[in-house]
C-alpha cells in the first residue's frame, strides 16, 4: 500500500501488478489528469502531513466499507502540464463491484476533505480551482 504526496510521476503498470493480492479478481485504476481547459500548466500544493493522514483515514474507511484487498493513492504536487497525472488511485478486490465502489469512494472523499489546492496557469495569469464542495474541507471521514 502506497499513500503519498509527491512531485514525481507514477508507474501505474507497476502499481497494478503490486495490487494483485491473493484473492483479487479485479483491479480498478482512477487516473485524474490535467485537462486542457485553455491552460498552460497547473500548479498544485498540499498541506502535506495533514493530507497524507487524511488519505490514510480514507483508505482505512474504503477498506472497511468495500472489502478492498489493496489501495494505493498517489497525489502529485508541483507544476504539471496538460495530460499529466494528478492523482492515481489503484485498488483491488475480490469482485469488480467492490473495486469500482471502493475506487469511487476514495476519489469522492479525497475531493471533499484532503487539503490540496490547484491553480490553473493561463496566458493571462492564473486562477485557483474552486473545490467540488465549496463549503469546507478537513472534515473527518465518517467512520
Amino acid at each position, binding site marked *: 500500500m502506497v499513500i503519498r504526496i509527491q512531485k514525481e510521476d507514477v508507474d501505474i503498470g507497476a502499481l497494478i501488478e503490486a495490487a494483485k493480492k491473493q484473492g483479487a479478481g479485479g483491479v480498478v485504476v482512477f487516473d485524474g489528469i490535467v485537462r486542457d481547459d485553455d491552460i498552460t500548466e497547473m500548479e*498544485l*500544493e498540499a498541506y502535506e502531513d*495533514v493530507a497524507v493522514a487524511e488519505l490514510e483515514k480514507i483508505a482505512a474507511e474504503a477498506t472497511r466499507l468495500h472489502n478492498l484487498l489493496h489501495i494505493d493513492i498517489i497525489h502529485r504536487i508541483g507544476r504539471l502540464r496538460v495530460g499529466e497525472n494528478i492523482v492515481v488511485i489503484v485498488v483491488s478486490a475480490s469482485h469488480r463491484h467492490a473495486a469500482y465502489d471502493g475506487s469511487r469512494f476514495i476519489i469522492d472523499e479525497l475531493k471533499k*476533505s484532503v487539503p490540496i489546492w490547484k491553480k490553473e496557469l493561463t496566458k493571462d495569469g492564473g486562477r*485557483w480551482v474552486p*473545490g*467540488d464542495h*465549496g*463549503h469546507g474541507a*478537513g472534515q473527518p471521514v465518517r467512520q
Partner: protein
Amino acid sequence: MKVKVRFFARFRELLGTDIILEPPAGTTFTTLVLEVTRKNREGHDAIFDETGAFREFVILMRNGKRVESADAGSLGVADGDEIAVFPPVAGG
C-alpha cells in the same frame, strides 16, 4: 512561546506562510490570525468579513486538527502550536 502560522493557496499568495510568531500568553487562535494579517488589507479581507469574523468558507486547523470558527475566539494557542488557515480544498 513560539507559534507557527501556515497559509495555503490564495491565502499563502497574499500573506506568505510558515510565519513564526511569539505571541503573549492568553493569545487566542482568532487574535493570532488577526495580528498576522493586520498590516495586509487584502490578506485580511480574504479571511475575515467586515465584522471581523472568519469568512464562512475559511478552514482552520491547529496541529492538524480542524477548529470550528465559532471556537477559535476562545481557543488559546500554546508554545509549539502549528496554526493553519486555508480556503476550500480542490484536490483530485
